């Protein structure tokens, strides 16, 4: 049996980056303040000291520049891992992401594939200022050519980031910053690499399927504990892990079994990930549905200033109430 160490998500991500830098000379990191400062969340702490300034590059303050030059490095055959300090600032790089990062492989008919990762912390809950709590994974899910990965805990964060770096396609790696230091988990000391594109059934249940990912997994787990202990409702929980391409099969299998479903995410509602999941269930499991699919999400308003953020974010009670509603839906 291999050894494990208790790590936070930040430490687990740092481990994955360190392993990638140590084993693959083509891997390099690029971003604002990632060098001797170790990144504003310390995800890259110590890596520049260990691997050098050539491979862990502090960048000027320009997100478009970070992604755009990373695209070029990837064309040249490197495997850049670009960090954008907060996902709210990926808007500055939207053009390079949509026009180049997502399209080079197709444009060159596999001739210049880009094996690159853009990491960025997303989501609310840390009492941050405006533009620091965005969850806009739906933008990337709507963009052909990208993969979108969102871990929910230290262990899968490490294994998924390792997989994203090794993946032959460009990956948007969204890190739930509210989970960064929220808890520790056993993470294997030996390398562990997940498989992208697979959702995980983290709890089996028969009454209803809850589909979520990232930081929302915690309220989901909490809610389903209560539902089972207090209300005798047996919840099956799916952690998407990869948002795009989506593991439709796992979703459909579960919903076909339970007949009921709720999706939970903090990104905005309209055209969000929940809408897509509902559309897929509608397409593939309509006949099995005993109730409409519930949708719990961020509202269609700008993420509120932090004194009000806790009410904006989906919480266990909201999930419990929605599930109770759906269990008795006629």
């Amino acid at each position, binding site marked *: 049996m291999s050894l494990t160490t208790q790590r936070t998500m930040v430490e687990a991500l740092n481990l994955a980056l360190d392993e990638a830098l140590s084993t693959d000379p083509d891997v390099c990191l690029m971003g604002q303040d990632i060098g001797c400062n170790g990144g504003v969340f310390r995800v890259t702490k110590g890596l520049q000291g260990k691997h050098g300034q050539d491979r862990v590059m*502090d960048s*000027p303050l320009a997100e478009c520049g970070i992604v755009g030059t990373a695209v070029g490095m990837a064309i040249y055959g490197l495997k850049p891992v670009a960090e954008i300090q907060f996902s709210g600032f990926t808007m500055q790089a939207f053009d390079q992401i949509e026009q180049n990062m997502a399209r080079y492989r197709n444009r060159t008919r596999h001739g210049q594939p880009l094996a690159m990762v853009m990491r960025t912390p997303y989501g609310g809950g840390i009492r941050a*200022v405006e533009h620091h709590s965005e969850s806009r994974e739906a933008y990337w899910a709507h963009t052909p050519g990208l993969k979108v990965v969102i871990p929910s805990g230290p262990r899968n964060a490490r294994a998924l980031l390792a997989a994203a770096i090794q993946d032959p396609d460009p990956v948007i790696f969204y890190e739930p910053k509210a989970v960064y230091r929220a808890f520790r988990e056993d993470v294997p000391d030996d390398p562990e690499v997940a498989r992208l594109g697979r959702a995980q059934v983290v709890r089996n249940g028969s009454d209803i399927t809850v589909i979520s990912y990232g930081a929302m997994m915690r309220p989901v787990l909490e809610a389903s504990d209560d539902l089972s202990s207090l209300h005798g409702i047996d919840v099956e929980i799916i952690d998407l892990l990869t948002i795009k391409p989506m593991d439709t099969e796992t979703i459909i299998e579960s919903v076909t079994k339970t007949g009921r479903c709720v999706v939970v995410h903090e990104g905005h509602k309209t055209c969000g990930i929940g809408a897509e999941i509902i559309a897929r269930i509608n397409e593939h499991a309509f006949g099995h549905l005993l109730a409409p699919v519930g949708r719990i999400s961020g509202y269609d308003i700008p993420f509120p200033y932090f*004194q009000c953020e806790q*009410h904006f974010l989906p919480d266990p*009670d909201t999930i419990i109430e929605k599930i109770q509603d759906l269990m008795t839906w006629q």
Partner: protein
Amino acid sequence: MDTKPVQLDNIDVLQVLNEEGMVDTTKAPPLTHDQLRRLYVAMVLTRKFDSRMLAMQRQGEMGTFAPNLGQEATQIGQVFPLTADDWFAPSYRSFGAQIWRGWSMEQLLLLWAGYHEGFPPPEGVNDLPFSIVIGSHVLPAVGVAMGMAQKKQQHCVTVNFGDGAMSQGAVNEAFNFAAVYKAPCVFVCENNGWAISTPLQRQAATESLAVRGIGFGIPSIRVDGNDILAMVAATTTAAERARAGQGPSLIEAVTYRMSLHTTADDPTVYRQEEHVDPWHQRCPLLRFERYLNRESILTEDECRRIADECEQRVLEARAKFREMAKARPEEIFDFVYHTMPPELIEQKKDYLSRLARKGLNP
């Protein structure tokens, strides 16, 4: 094709008050004693506010914010020439300038404490709300200036940003738009040497950032940003040029970030104290004070009294802030559109029931 070399003028460097507090009278702006005292008071107030806010943050009463210790002269100098009809577009580190412009300190505290009420420019203050996204307010500021030109208003816009912001594409686009449309705009780049942990040398390959303006055809100048008189002189000239229809200017105000980047930052990780040390001598307040004392514009006693008064004003603001600081979670849907569309009415209903469940019904 004309084959003569393209001539580039040198970039002027302006200092009026040297590090010993001696004035170069040939360059000093014509200020009354009253004006000089007001400048001094505003700088002291900025510093008092800064250190009080830091204390409040450390005690958990305030969110993350960006101190501006040592940048008081750039702060106040740049807004001094502005009239109420001129506009100002602050950065997140511009609270000194914002107070001068008419933002109440209690509002600024609300802002940094995460209350939405802190954001809108106060009634009658022609400012933009500040921008948390580096550089994203610079194009809108140029747009305001273009609007003035279009409406034949002889006013100007001053926009404040950092050395880091110079790297943003959007800021460079703003330089170009301003230059092409001759927009009445004053760009004040507060070069404090750092963008979080990134020193200027990793931000740009030029020694002076003023040269960037030249690249866009914008008259540019490098100014000692710790010299309040140089700041006033440079920004007054630039504002006058702008109002007279002569287009934009860029002022590189050379200063230093003496304190933390923000309260979430730990500079000991990335910079040595030796780098900071020489800047203590160059303190904009000290330098100005020496001059005022020597010229008997303010005595040392008066300076002490001003300090006390400023501290008092800050404490009053804190008291007001504490009274006002009340989250209104029920309002978060109310400002998104002019009229709330049906889908938001529905979502708000859902949200209010969530609040009710938490016992937070309005």
